[in-house]
Structures are given as structure tokens and as C-alpha cells.
């Protein structure tokens, strides 16, 4: 059963991003800030660090596809983005695995790259006409703060979960 814990957790995050989270952060006209949750990107970085490149790419592609189907109307934007994050942030070194700071550094990098990838693409095909300066202040910084906060919040529980899943898997092999 334990092998389903991580996919279930990520699926839960995917649902929360589109439903509960939208109720927590209502839009207000007097504050020009749009906070976008990127919980799945955070989880992909964690999986990449602890389980390696193969796992994080597979998770990224599958959940990217689900995200595309459920939340957007162009297939592929999230699938490629999540897949790329899974590919690029798989540093399975002991040094990285033990350090909260390095986790946060990679989360910061991954969320930044993903946000700018998506902004660039949407600017290119004309979905948004937000200027780069405004994007940086109104979307990028607030979103980054939120996602780093989320990463700190789930760091220890997720590590416990990963250790538990790994232990169960090694027990199964015996």
C-alpha cells in the first residue's frame, strides 16, 4: 500500500491548488498581488532529490498531463514544464538530501524557472500582456515567498513520508 502514498499526496495537492487554495486567497483589486501555488513543483524537487531523476520525470510528466487536462485549455504547457523540473532538479547527493537550505535553494530555482518559462510562453502567444516588471513584482515574488513557505512547512513531514516509503519498499524486497 505504501507505494501509493506519494502519488496520493501529490494528487491531493493538485486538487487543493484549484479548489481550497482559491478560497483562501481571494482576489482583491486594491492589492495588486496574484499568488499562484506551485506545490507540485516543490514536491517534484523533493522527489528528484530523494528518489532520483527517473522518478521525478515520471511524476512530472504524469501530473503535468493531469494538470493540463483539468485546469488549462492548452495541452503540454504544464506537462513539459513539470517534466523539465523533474529532469533538471534531480540531485541525489547525500549532502543535498540532508540539507534544508539546499532543498530550499533548489525549490527557489525550480519555481523561478517554471514561472518565467510559463510567463515567457504566455507572453509569446498573447495570453497575457503583463509587462516583465509588473510580472516580477505582482506575481513572481509573492508566489515565490508562498512556495518557499510551503517547502519549509512540508520539509520534515515529507522527509518522514519518503523514509517510511523507502523502508517499506526495502522490506518488500526481502
Amino acid at each position: 500500500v505504501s507505494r501509493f502514498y506519494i502519488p496520493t499526496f501529490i494528487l491531493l495537492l493538485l486538487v487543493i491548488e484549484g479548489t481550497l487554495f482559491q478560497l483562501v486567497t481571494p482576489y482583491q483589486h486594491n492589492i495588486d498581488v496574484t499568488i499562484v501555488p506551485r506545490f507540485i513543483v516543490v514536491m517534484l524537487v523533493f522527489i528528484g532529490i530523494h528518489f532520483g531523476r527517473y522518478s521525478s520525470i515520471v511524476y512530472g510528466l504524469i501530473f503535468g498531463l493531469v494538470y493540463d487536462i483539468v485546469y488549462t485549455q492548452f495541452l503540454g504547457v504544464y506537462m513539459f514544464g513539470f517534466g523539465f523540473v523533474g529532469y533538471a532538479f534531480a540531485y541525489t547527493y547525500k549532502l543535498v538530501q540532508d540539507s534544508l537550505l539546499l532543498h530550499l535553494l533548489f525549490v527557489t530555482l525550480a519555481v523561478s524557472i517554471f514561472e518565467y518559462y510559463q510567463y515567457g510562453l504566455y507572453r509569446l502567444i498573447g495570453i497575457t500582456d503583463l509587462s516583465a516588471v509588473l510580472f516580477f513584482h505582482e506575481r513572481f515574488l509573492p508566489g515565490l515567498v508562498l512556495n518557499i513557505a510551503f517547502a519549509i512547512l512540508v520539509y520534515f513531514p515529507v522527509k518522514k513520508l519518503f523514509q517510511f516509503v523507502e523502508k517499506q519498499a526495502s522490506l518488500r524486497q526481502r
Partner: protein
Amino acid sequence: MLDLEESLHDYLMRSAVVIQRSPDRWTEYIGLNKGSEDGIEPNMGVIDSKGGLIGKVKQVSEFSSRIQLLSDNDRTNRVSAMIMMDQPEYGFIEGYDEDTGLLIMRKIDFEADIEEGQMVTTSGKGGVYPSGLLIGEVVRVEPDEYGLTQNAFIEPAADFYALDYVYIIERTSTTMGPELLEEETS
């Protein structure tokens, strides 16, 4: 009395619940819990529980549908609207000013005398929405950039960010068939 059986006001209403919203706020879409099994089809209008128009059905699957809000920044997102006065003035809702939260109504006759506080409703002449759905009220009028028509800024009656229960509007009056709308190609 004239015995007119059909008018552009005719519509059917179905209630629905908002179940999700696009997490990246690049596009303004929401998801509803009614789909093709409940008779929902693309291009039906959607109003909120207080009666203000919020958008139209864009995609339908079996048990859910996706609604494009009026605030979505898409060039094809237009509504044929009219300003309610003795002699209604027609125009198009095209675009949304994110800074002020106002809808922009363009292509209004330059001669038209538009005052603040006048009600704006759908005209029904776009073939998508029935006539008479409330959109909002005029806040400000200014000439457009070429000085040929006027632009009106409209305070929407619906709050696009506090949606829970909505109604899906099915226009029952006839619309022109696609073969009639097509230009002659031969």
C-alpha cells in the same frame, strides 16, 4: 395585441455549483459540476446567483464544464451589449481593465448621450446570449483612441471572485445557422 410567440428574451435556467478555478491566474476560467449529461452545451451564458452575467460555457465534458469569465483576457471574448435607455445604444463588451476591475464596452455611437449609472444588459443580437441579462452599470464614458466611437467603463453586477452557485442560461430562441453566417466562398 400582437401575438408574438418568440422573443430574444427566452431562456432556460439550470443551476450549478462552482467546483474549481484555474490556479495560475493567467486565464480566468472556472469549472462547474454540470456537463453534457445535464444538457449543457458550449456557448451557453452563465449568470451568478444575483443575476449578473459572468461568462459563457467554453468546454463541456460529461459531468463538468468550463466557463470563460468576462474578465478573461482573450480577444475573442466578446458580448453584444446594450445600454438601457429610451433608445437603447448598442456596443460590445470587449476586454477587462484589471487595475480597476471594470469591463470595457466599445463601439458605442459617438452621438449617444450616455450617463453614469445607466444599466447595461446583453442585447441578444450576438446569437449567443439571450436578451436582457444584466451585465452592470456605466461608471465612466470616454471617446475611443480614434475619436470615432465611445468607450464606456462598466462596473460588473457580478463579483468574479466570489462565485459559488451560478445559473447556466440556455438561449431558446432561434439562432442563425452556421451555413447562413458563412460568407459566400465560391
